[in-house]
């Protein structure tokens, strides 16, 4: 009789434990899997000794994420103000900037530092790809690079010619001199001449009107382009679809492995004469470390290492 009671109590305890274990397992496995995986930080600096970082706008969220994580501050309190792109290297030359986060320096920029007898060190930090996108309702999934060139040189003007529906292609372009337009010319069109972009007339006030290159408006027959980081942060993701190019989808993994090859990188640029133990080198090493790369990924960039 006594034994039976003990067994009964034991069974009830076991069942209660199993229920608790199931609840705990459910919470652990579902609630914040991504947070557990990605939330890593290493406090290396105080706000006062954090190196002065400058760069191009496309890297601003990256710079803020690094500073927040490496100083242990909340990202909401970080407000970095970049200088104009043309002044980037002046800051490095005259000592007002310690580290630049930017695309590969142009010949003009490299000459500028050379003229000032300064050597620079260029270290890739994250990968960046150039992507094309359409409305998510557009049946097209893939285009070849040649088809893209033909669309943007004006030779293909209807989706049916490349396996889509019978409707005209609205091929959006970007303003001349913009970062994405330069990328389009350098990485995609190369020696092929782009067609003249269509313009839209807008009124500044009731009297003055101006013709502008229209912004991508995601019509069902539209196509647009941007760098991967811009495309995934400036466009509402469930409204657009990134296209495969030559059969390769611009996924995070394909960009990281280099399979998707319309790509470039963002670099950290420092003065070569920076001391081995300087805070600048410490930051540079942190950016390329596993923790730094995880921070970059969390901020929406493609890891390089």
């Amino acid at each position: 009789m006594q034994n039976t009671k003990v067994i009964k109590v034991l069974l009830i305890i076991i069942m209660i434990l199993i229920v608790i274990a199931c609840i705990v397992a459910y919470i652990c496995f579902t609630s914040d899997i991504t947070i557990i995986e990605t939330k890593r930080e290493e406090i290396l600096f105080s706000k006062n000794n954090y190196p002065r970082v400058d760069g191009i706008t496309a890297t601003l969220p990256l710079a803020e994420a690094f500073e927040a994580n490496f100083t242990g501050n909340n990202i909401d309190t970080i407000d970095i103000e970049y200088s104009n792109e043309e002044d980037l290297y002046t800051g490095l030359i005259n000592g007002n900037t310690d580290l630049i986060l930017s695309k590969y320096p142009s010949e003009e920029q490299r000459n500028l530092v050379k003229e000032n007898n300064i050597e620079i060190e260029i270290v890739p930090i994250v990968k960046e790809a150039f992507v094309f996108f359409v409305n998510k309702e557009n049946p097209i999934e893939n285009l070849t690079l040649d088809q893209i060139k033909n669309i943007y040189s004006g030779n293909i003007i209807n989706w049916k010619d490349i396996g889509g529906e019978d409707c005209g292609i609205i091929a959006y372009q970007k303003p001349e001199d913009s970062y994405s337009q330069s990328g389009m010319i350098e990485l995609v069109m190369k020696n092929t001449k782009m067609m003249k972009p269509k313009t839209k007339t807008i009124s500044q006030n009731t009297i003055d009107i101006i013709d502008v290159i229209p912004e991508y408006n995601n019509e069902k027959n539209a196509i647009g382009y941007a760098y991967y980081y811009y495309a995934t942060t400036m466009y509402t993701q469930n409204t657009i679809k990134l296209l495969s190019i030559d059969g390769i989808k611009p996924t995070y993994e394909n960009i990281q492995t280099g399979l998707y090859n319309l790509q470039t990188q963002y670099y950290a640029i420092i003065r070569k004469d920076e001391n081995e133990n300087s805070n600048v080198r410490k930051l540079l090493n942190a950016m390329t470390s596993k923790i730094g790369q995880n921070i970059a990924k969390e901020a929406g960039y493609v890891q390089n290492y």
Partner: protein
Amino acid sequence: MFKTIKAQIIFSIVFSVICIITTAILIAYQKIDIEENSKTGEIIKGKDVKGIDLNGTYNQNDLEIEEKSVSLAKREIRYFQISGLKNKNIENKINKEIEETALNCYKDKIKNIDEVVNIQVSMWEAGNFANTISFEMSYYAKIDNNEDDFYQGVLGLNYDLNTGEKITIDKIFTSDTPIENVLRNSAYYSLIKNNAKENLAGNLTISDYGNIEDRIAEIIHKYKSGKIKEFYYTPKDISIIIDDEIINVNMEEYSEYIAIYNRYISEESLYENNDIGMKKIYTLSKRNNNLFYYQNYQKENNYFVDITIDFQSASTDYFAKEIVDKKIIQIENEIEKIKQKTLENTNEFYVMNYYIIIYTGEESSLNETLTSYHEIGNTYEMTVHDFEENIEPIIIKYNRQQEIGNSANYIYDFSDMLKLEPQSVTEYYNPNTGEKIVL
């Protein structure tokens, strides 16, 4: 139920297995969901509040808004105070916050008052409808007497009148808004307009065209990091203030995603009186109810009245005032007659639409002071169906086209539909004798 130990053990095992399998299924299902969401980059949300009804109307709040002025050393500060809310705690809270903001808004930029010649703070009522209120507050401070050197700033004060809490920018939009697309497009055209300048040939050109993409990326990044705090809204658009630049979001373009017309509507009135604000104004249009001496705007099932009397003469202009008062009585009698008629025939619809301007001043051709009376408008009769199908769209379009701040005459032209034009009458009187003058 389970009398034997064996049965109890079997039950425990079956129970445990069911628990484990259920948990495993739930985890697997949840993981798939998380992965799907992380692939699209966002959590898919439904619409929490309706967007704007393009054929609908809204009510202005029954609030009194009074301007206060404070003069301090080197500072001229003008700000609004509201009254008319049933809940005085909420009213006081809002007024206190407005006052404190007006007195301190420039202090972030101007640390020391000796830096400047003077500071002016002023406010503008941007939106006052649907149980919300939105003000634009701005300051301007001359650094020296050179007009090129100054500090300036703009901020927004937006309140939910149900609670007295500030409205954050995300509450302006419905939860399913493709916010990046809305901000990107709005920022693009706003930045172009803000930066367009006339060249020597007199044509508009855009400077910094190449940087626009970067600026937009910065704006969206700031929005996502919760760093956009300053904005105000009218019934037509939202003005987002970012680094001294204003990004304009056109509500009509994104009407399905604008929640501010509906989010704070309450079943019970929040106001002590219910006849201060204008009622049933067409959405996406803004009407000022305090610009004119007399304004009668009514939209009902069988009649639409839109009558304005513009009369700004001196208080000693007794003759003109007599004309105006008589006219008002006449108008109100006419409206009563229309109401009676519609009671008799519910299929009939009447539009009574007039703009009257009365002014006493010197008539240059006669070199004499005259009172002029100018009336334009008409009363139209039609079926309810004709009003809804043909006439109302014209009224809506006209109201929406009016620029905010302009004192429009609100005279509608239905001549294409009704073959009847607004009639115009102009009369002149000698204000001293009341004699009619023929010019």
